[in-house]
């Protein structure tokens, strides 16, 4: 391996779009799908669950406890468990990652709703908001900065965890690591790392941008403080 350069550009050029299942482009696309779908599903599930946990606090401890147990399991264990149900498909990665995402997003929604100042909630009641409209027009919008904070963590961790799926053949860019190790060939490993990091930075940047657009009042509050 001593003579092997860290990156062989010609290998990248040949394998970027070679038409096969191991083309870098194909792996990148499946990585994006397997990383982001869990975040989308997680958010869709965490919003109602988080609202319910915030509304009925007794639900929160058991839910959070269960989610922490799930989160503490190594991802590989979860993948193996789902392997017997969903086989060697993307679902075997997407479902466990959705569960991991929930472990981050449910507390984020609960904390976000908890971050709504009591006087704001009280004044919404006193103005004559009914509960659903109060939730949609006051409490959730005010919770957005905290929820988006959770979403950033969930997104980046999901992007990194997808690679572990390579051990069951569904790792997106993670498959490049296995390939590289098996062949003692650093180029795929470097390509995988660089693309995953770039993808994570880009996603996080987009979320920060979304936060600025969605909550001008919150950004300005920070700069004023």
């Amino acid at each position, binding site marked *: 391996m001593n003579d092997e350069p860290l990156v062989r550009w010609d290998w990248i050029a040949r394998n970027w779009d070679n038409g096969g299942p191991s083309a870098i482009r194909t792996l990148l696309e499946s990585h994006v799908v397997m990383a982001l779908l869990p975040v989308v599903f997680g958010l869709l599930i965490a919003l109602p669950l988080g609202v319910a946990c915030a509304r009925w606090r007794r639900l929160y401890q058991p839910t959070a406890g269960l989610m922490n147990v799930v989160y503490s399991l190594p991802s590989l264990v979860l993948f193996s468990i789902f392997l017997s149900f969903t086989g060697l498909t993307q679902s075997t990665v997407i479902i466990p990652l959705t569960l991991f995402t929930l472990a981050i997003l449910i507390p984020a929604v609960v904390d976000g709703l908890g971050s709504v100042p009591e006087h*704001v909630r009280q*004044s919404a009641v*006193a*103005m*004559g908001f009914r509960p659903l*409209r109060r939730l949609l027009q006051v409490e959730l919008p005010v919770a957005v900065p905290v929820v988006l904070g959770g979403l950033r963590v969930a997104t980046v961790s999901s992007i990194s965890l997808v690679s572990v799926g390579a051990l069951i053949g569904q790792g997106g860019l993670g498959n490049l690591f296995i390939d590289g190790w098996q062949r003692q060939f650093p180029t795929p490993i470097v390509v995988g790392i660089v693309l995953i990091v770039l993808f994570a930075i880009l996603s996080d940047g987009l979320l920060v941008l979304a936060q600025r657009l969605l*909550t001008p*009042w*919150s950004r300005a*509050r920070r700069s004023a403080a």
Partner: protein
Amino acid sequence: MITFEGVTKRYPDGTVAVDDLSLQAPTGAITVFVGPSGCGKTTSLRMINRMIDATSGRILLDDQDVRAIDPPTLRRGIGYVIQQAGLFPHRKIVDNVATVPYLLGWDKKKARARAMELLELVGLDSKLAGRYPFQLSGGQQQRVGVARALAADPPVLLMDEPFSAVDPIVRASLQEELLHLQSELHKTIVFVTHDIDEAIKLGDAVAVLRVGGRLAQMADPATLLSEPADDFVREFLGKDRGIRRLSFVPATGIRLGSVPADLELDEDTRPLGWRSDGGLLPYGTFNPERDSLRAALDAALLSPNGTAIAVDGDGRAIGVATRDVLDEALARHGTRPEKRVPDPDREVPASDPRRAES
């Protein structure tokens, strides 16, 4: 008119927050609920718009039991101002003010136009309309809170310690503005405070509540100061009741003497000071048309010779009131048996002669 009929609030743990409260808050007047913490004043206020429901008894809005009205509908018809303003941080000022009109289904344009009117009414620059609440000072936020409460023109306004989180100078100006607004709008206002001075300044009627949620006394401020019902009320009112009560006695009845020769005046007959060998000495003025007997007395105390200078609205000297004349006025207004004459060593009058007592 808001009527409390034997209203009690008892919590499941047995705590009684409000105990058999009966009183009336008259239409078009400011009724203040005042008392120490734990006296149930905020609970009483919140039972009016059903933020809290009474355990027993009735609250009538005009002749209608509030329990018969769906709470959100009831609340949209009652303005509410909360301590920290409670503005929605994610909405611009104009949309905060338009909250209730939006809830009532007004179209956006009309609601915003109404909001702009109200910002002007409470003395806020229209430039602030597009800002977010955090960009405003505490006093401005509180004004927005008042504008928001008035947006749908409700006949009733509930104010829960609205001015207690701002500094004393801003608080005083907000109080003055509330009185000014009220002189134009004539809302039925129920105002909660723990500050007896605020209660006396703002209230047409003051209900003093004691811990445990029982009404200790309800009266107009002057009566409260001169005839406290019991030791609790007397203690709660604090010192200097005699002096403070004079704030409610107009200075119009004071017999004025002519302007003496030793008062130096400018060409517009505005006072400059008392002549003496060492130059001009300080003086105090009061406006008999506008000020109270307390202000006149204060003006006398500010002059080394004990003579208060009466001025007109433009500050021109129109006469003087000597100690003897003021003593006569005090004798007419301040010496019913219950009232003690305040110890003169105790009251240190504020030194600003421009201060007008209302």
